[in-house]
């Protein structure tokens, strides 16, 4: 008998049949709740209450999704950037009663306005303009007006409020605008499926309303398969959370489980498992040389000293990279696990990135839906419009457009707080080191695609098993040095850190 960490339960005919019965569905709901609690998910009970509707009455799936999503907009208002909204609303000097309802009224008005703007943008193809290009230009114009135009204060606040909301909906709307000439769900459904209840992320998991309709389960058996795969993914996320805690305890000295109720602590070289009032020795001894300092503390120390401890720096950047991989995997698995439980058989966001065959493949495996966003909305449109260029130049320009411009724009829209605080130009300037990262990433991806295409998969065992993983993981590990959204981090200090890794300073 073969033991696997996460068994393929969706392939068991008995479980598939059971999952379609009333008792089986109730068990699925209970397991989903237990897993979300163990995963320390922010809203396990409301989420499972919503999932219960999907699982028990799947014929109303689309209606449940609209209802659950709008419900989460209202009750999980922090998804929209609660503080930024409150700061803008303060300028209206509202009374206590008006202050209480103002965020909801502003949200409702913003959603209506976004719907109206989209209706207008859908007319742009008449003039051979892509609706998404129109949305980007309009967003930029409004942000510039709010930053620099001599507007009276309430009007500026109204503009910023609208941009705060639009920023959160922007990429969901972008998918809808991208699908302008296909059969789309109704306007209300498009809006109420945006920023869905399963994830507060700006990255549409898994894309938007039209895509959801394409991947939803068409019968009871398909729904059962999707739901069992959802349970499996949440269970796998739990293993990754356990591994993350063990990883952090081993290298940083402290790891948490179940929202901090259980802790793993390295004490005098030994790993202890415990809670507030108890602790037991695990018998696992961690040598001191494995200790890793926090990356940002190490980086800051390097910036102001001779920075000659390359081993310390390698450990810090390596640990940050692994921690980031694990975090992205857990976050994506939880979101897609809930998506699948709702009856939408979506692909996973992260699939074994350490097995990547190339730099481009790593990106595909590490953060699939973000890559899809850039590919669908930027890469292919650029590639297709450059048909008169030689193939390699066409590919190069499309990669630059997607990975530099698209990636940069995504982060700028997401960082609307910075734009409000500093104005458009200063916010863009703050992202300069991130822009360098996108340039490095784009060239890495292009070279990876170009070389792979020329070689058409002819690689020796040594190249496949040793050289490729070292190059791919090493590339991303080093590139993340340029991903630092703290204000004031300079390119010079980042270059100094990278040089220090190779004993150069």
């Amino acid at each position, binding site marked *: 008998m073969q033991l696997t960490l996460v068994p393929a339960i969706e392939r068991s005919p008995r479980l598939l049949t059971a999952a379609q019965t009333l008792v089986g569905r109730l068990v699925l709901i209970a397991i989903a709740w237990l897993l979300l609690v163990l995963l320390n998910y922010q809203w396990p009970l409301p989420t499972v209450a919503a999932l219960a509707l999907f699982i028990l009455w799947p014929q109303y799936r689309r209606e449940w999704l609209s209802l659950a999503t709008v419900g989460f907009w209202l009750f999980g208002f922090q998804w929209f950037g609660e503080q930024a909204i409150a700061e803008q609303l303060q300028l209206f000097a509202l009374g206590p009663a008006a202050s209480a309802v103002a965020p909801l009224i502003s949200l409702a008005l913003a959603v209506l306005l976004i719907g109206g703007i989209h209706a207008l943008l859908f007319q742009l193809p008449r003039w*051979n303009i*892509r609706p998404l290009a129109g949305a980007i230009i309009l967003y930029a114009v409004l942000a510039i007006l709010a930053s620099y135009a001599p507007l009276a204060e309430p009007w500026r606040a109204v503009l910023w409020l609208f941009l705060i909301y639009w920023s959160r909906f922007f990429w969901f709307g972008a998918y809808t605008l991208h699908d302008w*000439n296909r059969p789309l769900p109704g306007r209300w459904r498009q809006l109420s499926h945006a920023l869905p209840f399963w994830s507060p992320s700006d990255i549409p998991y898994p894309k938007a309303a039209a895509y959801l309709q*394409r991947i939803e389960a068409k019968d009871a058996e398909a729904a059962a398969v999707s739901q069992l795969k959802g349970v499996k993914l949440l269970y796998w996320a739990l293993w990754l959370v356990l591994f993350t805690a063990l990883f952090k305890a081993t290298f940083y000295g402290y790891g948490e489980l179940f929202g901090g109720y259980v802790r793993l602590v390295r004490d005098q070289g030994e790993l202890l498992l415990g809670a507030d009032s108890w602790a037991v020795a695990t018998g696992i001894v961690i040598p001191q040389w494995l200790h890793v300092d926090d990356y940002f503390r190490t980086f800051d120390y390097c910036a102001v000293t001779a920075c000659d401890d390359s081993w310390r720096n390698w450990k810090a950047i390596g640990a940050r990279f692994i921690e980031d991989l694990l975090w992205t995997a857990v976050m994506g698995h939880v979101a897609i696990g809930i998506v699948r439980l709702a009856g939408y058989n979506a692909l996973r966001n992260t699939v074994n990135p350490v097995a990547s065959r190339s730099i481009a493949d790593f990106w595909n495996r590490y953060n699939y839906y973000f890559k899809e966003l850039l*590919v669908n909305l930027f890469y*292919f449109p650029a590639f297709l419009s450059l*048909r008169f260029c030689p193939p390699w130049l066409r590919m190069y320009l499309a990669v630059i457009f997607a990975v530099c411009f698209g990636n940069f724009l995504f982060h700028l829209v997401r960082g609307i707080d910075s734009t409000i605080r500093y104005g458009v130009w200063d916010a863009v300037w703050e992202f300069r080191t991130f822009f360098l990262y996108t340039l490095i990433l784009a060239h890495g991806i292009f070279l990876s695609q170009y070389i792979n*295409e020329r070689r058409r998969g002819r690689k020796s065992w040594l190249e496949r098993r040793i050289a490729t993983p070292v190059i791919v993981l090493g590339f991303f590990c080093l590139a993340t040095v340029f991903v630092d959204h703290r204000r004031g981090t300079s390119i010079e200090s980042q270059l100094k850190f990278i040089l220090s890794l190779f004993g150069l300073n």
Partner: protein
Amino acid sequence: MDIRSSLRQFIEQRLLEYGDTPDFDGDESLILSARLDSLAVLFIVMHIEQEFGVYFDELSFELEDFDTLDQMVVLVENGLNDGR
């Protein structure tokens, strides 16, 4: 070589390079099932452009239209009929 055979041969080669088996049915999902990725679609697009002189409109292009061999054949046939 006809459209279907040419596309099938090209896709089989891609699947082999991806470490997959070259077997697939005409209506079998290749993109949504993650057997092929967006980069593979890019090369399929270039193959269609070079072999059949069919160019896709960037305003209406959709990655998932390339999900199955049957869909790709229809795309090429429509493209030839439109004179694109």
